[in-house]
């Protein structure tokens, strides 16, 4: 069917989540006409996740109400190239978002900056440990930008969100009570840290006694009301513990809905088309210039939206998929080790320690997606890896995200899996047990990548994207080491019984871990090893920019959203102040 051609616009944005909203706001602010095309529905706090029914674990957590339906679009998965990939028919390990607000609707709002050394990872590690220290198939690389480049943009995103936290380093001065390992901030967080429940408080005491420097986790669930520079007001978090998987009905969690959209939708040069799925980015005959996008509405009508500038702002997985389907950039070939689209897929390596107490009541239902006390001694390269035989790390801590009724059923080992004894153990453990976590990074490897599946297609006949991924020895070693260190702190909290759950074995795509899928069209210093330049501009198509964790060359030991937001502001700044004055490649090679 021929797509019907619409009047041209200055900018077309694919996906109206965090990065789409930020780009739309910045570029409409620069006077451009912006059309955002969103696959899912419009979403509004009071209409779509009101307090009267938003805290519904069955509907949202178990039945995945907010997420993309795999029937509409999914991907195939395999652990390695010797296997045949099969379609994911029910989400497990990660949760692809859908609808206006994207992942910003359902995140836990943990708002971390990456370490300065994370951005120059290969250079840093080779300098400190030598080239031979890194596994031969590890394809980590530098980002092409520095922490200092990004700092003003981190600051802008955090002040948009109203992030609650305690700075550990302001302009090079270490601040008591904050994370002493973080890069220098230009100023304090916009709002003070959230209140800490009993578990994190105990954890912090134990960590302090062991000589660590615990600090409150930076949170996008706000400790107090906050009005951001756009004039949009957020309310204080009520610690209800329905954050990740849920929309916040209290206007307390930073999301496009609670920070940008109310200001954006007032602008006459902004338009959003929801329930419209972009099928591909169109190129001119030279293949060097995007002419717009083609999308399909719910009636099956295809539309062509011409635009001077195309911004790919969908979720990480779908950005890569659209690049592959559109024939932009050279697809990655793991055998030859060349090509860039699909290269360097990375994930997150999490683990936990369960502790069972006799004399303590933790009230896990007093929760927020990002309260908790953490330590950062074992993140990135904050510790000497020389004797350890691996690189990378993660933050760890007591993070009290929820005590929801269906899934909070922690029992000690050797408890029967059902029956009266199980019920007794659940009842006993609900209040008196505690789970502490590590949040480890994941390096990139030659054999972890995306390509188009040779067999499976979606309802429109488009090839599904194939995910090939497994954990590597380096990450499993790291997870064991981090989990051991965490267990030492938890042991000091005085449990009756303690159980360590380091990440082990093969990656399991059916078990939830995090939604921090990264890479596939990474940023870098040269087109041979990256899809995007340091401004997130396609090396191949200069009027195409690709936002999100798609650009991460590898994934550090933190949650990605703060960096995703900062990179969007960084790219918007480059577009407004450089690209628009002289449209073309912003980096010459």
């Amino acid at each position: 069917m021929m797509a019907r051609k619409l009047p041209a616009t200055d900018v077309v944005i694919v996906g109206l989540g965090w990065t789409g909203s930020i780009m739309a706001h910045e570029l409409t602010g620069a006077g451009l006409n912006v059309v955002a095309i969103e696959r899912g529905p419009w979403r509004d706090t009071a209409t779509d996740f009101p307090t009267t029914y938003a805290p519904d674990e069955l509907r949202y957590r178990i039945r995945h109400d907010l997420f993309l339906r795999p029937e509409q679009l999914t991907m195939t998965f395999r652990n390695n190239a010797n296997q045949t990939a099969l379609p994911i028919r029910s989400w497990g390990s990660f949760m692809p978002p859908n609808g206006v607000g994207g992942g910003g609707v359902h995140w836990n709002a943990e708002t971390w900056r990456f370490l300065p050394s994370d951005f120059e990872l290969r250079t840093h590690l080779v300098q400190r440990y030598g080239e031979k220290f890194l596994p031969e198939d590890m394809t980590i690389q530098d980002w092409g930008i520095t922490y200092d480049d990004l700092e003003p943009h981190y600051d802008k995103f955090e002040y948009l969100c109203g992030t609650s936290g305690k700075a550990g380093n302001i302009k090079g001065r270490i601040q008591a009570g904050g994370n002493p390992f973080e890069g220098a901030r230009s100023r304090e967080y916009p709002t003070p840290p959230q209140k800490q429940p009993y578990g994190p408080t105990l954890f912090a005491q134990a960590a302090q006694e062991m000589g660590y420097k615990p600090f409150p986790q930076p949170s996008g669930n706000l400790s107090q009301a906050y009005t951001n520079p756009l004039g949009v007001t957020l309310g204080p978090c009520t610690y209800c513990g329905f954050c990740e998987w849920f929309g916040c009905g209290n206007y307390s969690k930073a999301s496009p809905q609670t920070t940008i959209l109310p200001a954006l939708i007032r602008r006459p040069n902004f338009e959003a088309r929801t329930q419209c799925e972009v099928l591909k980015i169109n190129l001119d005959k030279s293949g060097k210039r995007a002419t717009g996008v083609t999308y399909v509405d719910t009636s099956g009508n295809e539309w062509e939206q011409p635009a001077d500038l195309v911004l790919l702002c969908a979720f990480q997985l779908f950005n890569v998929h659209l690049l592959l389907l559109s024939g932009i950039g050279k697809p990655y070939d793991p055998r030859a080790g060349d090509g860039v689209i699909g290269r360097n897929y990375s994930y997150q390596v999490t683990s936990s320690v369960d502790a069972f107490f006799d004399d303590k009541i933790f009230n896990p239902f007093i929760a927020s997606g990002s309260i908790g006390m953490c330590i950062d001694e074992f993140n990135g390269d904050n510790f000497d890896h020389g004797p350890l035989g691996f690189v990378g790390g993660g933050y760890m801590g007591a993070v009290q995200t929820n005590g929801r009724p269906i899934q909070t059923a922690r029992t000690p080992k050797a408890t029967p899996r059902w029956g009266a004894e199980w019920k007794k153990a659940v009842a006993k453990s609900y209040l008196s047990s505690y789970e502490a976590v590590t949040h480890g990074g994941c390096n990139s490897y030659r054999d972890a990548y995306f390509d188009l599946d040779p067999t499976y297609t979606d309802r429109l006949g488009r090839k599904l994207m194939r995910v090939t991924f497994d954990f590597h020895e380096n990450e499993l070693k790291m997870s064991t080491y981090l989990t051991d260190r965490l267990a030492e702190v938890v042991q000091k909290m005085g449990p009756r019984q303690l159980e360590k759950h380091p990440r082990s074995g093969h990656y399991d795509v059916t078990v939830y871990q995090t939604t921090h899928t990264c890479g596939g069209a990474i940023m870098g210093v040269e087109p041979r090893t990256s899809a995007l330049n340091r401004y997130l501009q396609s090396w191949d198509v200069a009027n195409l920019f690709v936002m999100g964790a798609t650009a991460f060359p590898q994934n550090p030991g933190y949650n990605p959203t703060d960096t995703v937001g900062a990179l969007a502001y960084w790219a918007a700044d480059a577009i407004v102040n450089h690209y628009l004055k002289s449209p073309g490649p912003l980096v010459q090679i």
Partner: protein
Amino acid sequence: MRMRNLMTLALAACAIGLAAARAAEDNQAFEKIERGRYLAVLGDCVGCHTAPGGKPFAGGAALETPFGALVGPNITPDVATGIGAWSESDLWRAMHEGIARTGARLYPAMPYPAYTKVTREDVSAIWAYLRTLEPVHNEVQPNQLTFPFNVRRPATSTWDLINFKPGVFQSDPAKSDVWNRGAYLVEGLGHCGTCHTPKNITGGDRGGEALQGALLQDWYAPDLTADPRMGIGSWSTEDIVRYLKTGANSFDIASGPMAEAVENSTSHMTDADLLAIATYLKDGAPRSANTAIALAHDDTRMVAGKAIYEDRCAACHISSGAGVPTLFPRLAQAPLVQSTDPTSLIRVVLIGSRAAATSAAPTAPAMPSFGWTLSDTEIADVLTYVRNTWGNAASAVQSTDVTTLRGRVSR
């Protein structure tokens, strides 16, 4: 062919006629047109004369009255369906006397009892502005009243004899210029009393009760007098200005019809005019005999209401009733909460409501509907609690009132 020539001739004649009628007009009188535009904002003409999503001033917004619906006519210069055939004197007569070009009496949904106070000079500027609008062909049936109210009103009407006193605003030399400007705006173009002044059985203003609060379209327009409990006595001049400018202040957030008034009109007013309005309102005499005693905290309705409040309301409005400024309205010592008439309270609990959005305060937070999850008795109890705690005092809400309103607003 012959037919077409005749048509052309007729059209040409028509055009000459119009040109003659407009000969006296200076259609590039920028200052006058721009002043007229601002005056039309002050009068919120667009509010009644624009359909939701329709072209501005092309008519179509329905006003529900106890006598049936009245729809704002098309006031663009379209000859066939708008006021293209009117003269400036016709507009003056409509605004000042409430009489249409046809000679028929307008219905007072067109607030001529207030607009009569507008000066001739200002009406002339509004006219100059309206003439510059794009003529929009849009047929509107303004009179959708039920019998017998839909019978065209005679030029001399009993209603006007009782309720209408024509006359341009006369300033009070004993008061400041700012006060007088405020009075001119509130009583004239601003037509605040159209919603906020209690009405008699015929729908006219009740004498001596100006701005003391009134029920309209199942909303209670609150008391705007300086009454310290139910009025704006506790608001400073700056609080009033901020509310009208942004739709929110530390006490309250505009919702319902006032949200429209803020979005269309008050948020676009100059700071000087807002200050004038606030100055005048602050000087209004508080209503007399204003005493209410809070219900005992152990009253069964209060006990039940407190439990519901803590469970369903406190997350946003806070246990202390303090709310969150510009996001969740304050309930403690809030005038609207203690109004004699709880209709607005019942309504927002039943079906929810969205706050005004302005450039200065774009958040537009919304209260979700609780009508599907709370019974009539539960809604009555929680509102009774809210109206009688944290220093609040007001009559209990009856579950029968909730039942009645539920039937009306859930239609």
